């Protein structure tokens, strides 16, 4: 059970899809005009993400590796259709304000990313909790952006208006405002960042991907990683050996030089002594 809670913490704080992983930027920038839209989009994505992770994880040994992406897409698309019909039936106002971005959940990179990176390699329970964590992280991210944008741009929170019309900064309701707010909040997140593999606090591995192999797909990467590490260690050992040898040589040379100088000195003193006499 501990692992499940860790997945939720990971999704909301450590690898928040909006502020840390920077995934799913398209809905993030497009639908966050009001807080209601942000929450609605986040929760719809969460629902799809939980079930897609669960199903993909359960089927991970049946789906052939070569056709896994089409298989994932079919699963996700079926789930999105269900969510879309449910939204249309029960919250038509939200459905109409989210518009095209509901069907676009199918190609949301958070969903495909988690399927590839986590669900395809872990058990159904952990994968479902990973989906919950990532989905809630996405919801939190969207809601934060949407609240800031709604306050500044429309003078309201969840539709409750409290800033008079004269003092609203309309640009925050438009596309540029989405970029401003996302950048600002990401900067804040970086300032008070929780350590994670992607924001630079984890120990560096020297690999371009950050070496976060636990959440990476494909065992070949792991073997590559091992091979690369071995090569690196060998090179380091060789370099150290060469350095040591060079140092020894230098020390020997120094010693010899010192000896020679001493001998010369002695000879010189002898000569001086001889002169004095």
């Amino acid at each position, binding site marked *: 059970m501990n692992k499940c809670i860790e997945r939720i913490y990971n999704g909301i704080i450590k690898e928040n899809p909006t502020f840390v992983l920077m995934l799913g930027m398209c809905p993030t920038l497009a639908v966050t005009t009001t807080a209601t839209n942000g929450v609605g989009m986040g929760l719809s994505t969460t629902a799809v993400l939980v079930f897609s992770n669960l199903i993909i994880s359960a089927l991970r040994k049946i789906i052939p590796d070569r056709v896994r992406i089409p298989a994932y897409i079919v699963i996700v698309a079926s789930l999105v259709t269900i969510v879309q019909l449910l939204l249309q039936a029960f919250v038509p106002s939200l459905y109409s304000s989210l518009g095209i971005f509901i069907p676009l959940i199918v190609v949301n990179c958070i969903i495909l990313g988690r399927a590839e990176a986590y669900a395809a390699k872990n058990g159904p329970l952990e994968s479902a909790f990973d989906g919950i964590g990532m989905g809630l992280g996405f919801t939190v991210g969207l809601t934060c952006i949407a609240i800031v944008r709604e306050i500044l741009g429309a003078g309201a929170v969840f539709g409750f208006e409290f800033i008079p019309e*004269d003092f*609203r*900064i*309309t*640009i*925050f309701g*438009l596309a*540029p405002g989405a970029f*401003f707010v996302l950048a600002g909040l990401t900067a804040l997140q970086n300032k008070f960042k929780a350590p994670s593999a992607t924001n630079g606090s984890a120990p560096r591995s020297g690999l371009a991907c950050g070496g976060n192999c636990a959440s990476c797909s494909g065992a070949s990467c792991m073997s590559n990683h091992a091979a690369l590490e071995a090569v690196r260690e060998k090179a380091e050992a060789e370099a150290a050996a060469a350095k040591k040898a060079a140092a020894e040589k230098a020390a020997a040379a120094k010693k010899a030089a010192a000896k020679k100088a001493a001998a010369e000195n002695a000879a010189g003193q002898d000569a001086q002594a001889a002169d004095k006499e």
Partner: protein
Amino acid sequence: MSKLLNVSASPHVRSKETTQSIMADVCIAMLPATAFGVFHFGFHALLVLIVTVAACVLSEYVFQKIMKLPLTVSDMSAVVTGMILALNMPANIPLWIPALGGVFAIIVVKQLYGGIGQNFMNPALAGRCFLLISFAGKMSDFAMDSWSGATPLAQLKAGEAMDAADLMGMFIGKIPGTIGEVSVVALLVGGIYLAAKKVISLRIPVTYILTVAVFAFIFGKQDMNYVLAHICGGGLVFGAFFMATDYVTSPITPKGQIVFGVLLGILTGLFRIFGGSAEGVSYAIIISNLLVPLIERFTLPAAFGKEGKKS
């Protein structure tokens, strides 16, 4: 020790110009237009100017203090940004709007990209466009007690004809508009001062204004008064001499400056004649600012000794 024997590293010949002296020259050049604006629109225009400059300088100081950066307040670039921004405001604007614009211009457009010399578009104009989008109504409300009615460009847009008296009013500045843009003659005095002191080269302003004139002649009306009204109306002269020539956001290659001027002219003409709003100088300049690295790349002069050779 004689000076002849004093060995020092190159460069041995230095210009006496500093960022501060150049920025001071730009401020001096804007004074006639500012004075006219204050005289024309009244005391509130002066307040707008003071508040905007103060907001720019203060936000630069506070940002650099907080981020523990070297202070660049004394180079006067923030003062210039503030002045340009203020001169782009309607005179009766509530004071907090230009202050907000100044903070946005300095912090978001200038400092976040690395401070002076690093900004990718003119901070004052970006601040102006930010305000223009956010407070469209207030930013284009030029009604004053004594001067009401549409700006000349809006009249042109509506299809009204201009006569010689109207043109004279536009040249002197007896028209509604933003604080700094109204008086062509005051702006020209400032522009000539800058050119005489070699702070700016005339390539950008001249090609810009000529291109707008040609564009208006071809795509607008084939009428001298119409073309002249396009040149004297709106922010064209102000933009051409003071905003398009900003060192950071305009090309440094001579050929590039001409390309830049032509591009500005075409964009301005497009926005004015085919676009939805009557004025387009600000947007034309910030869009062209984005293309400056590209222009510079394709107009790089050949290195000494490599002329005539194809690389």
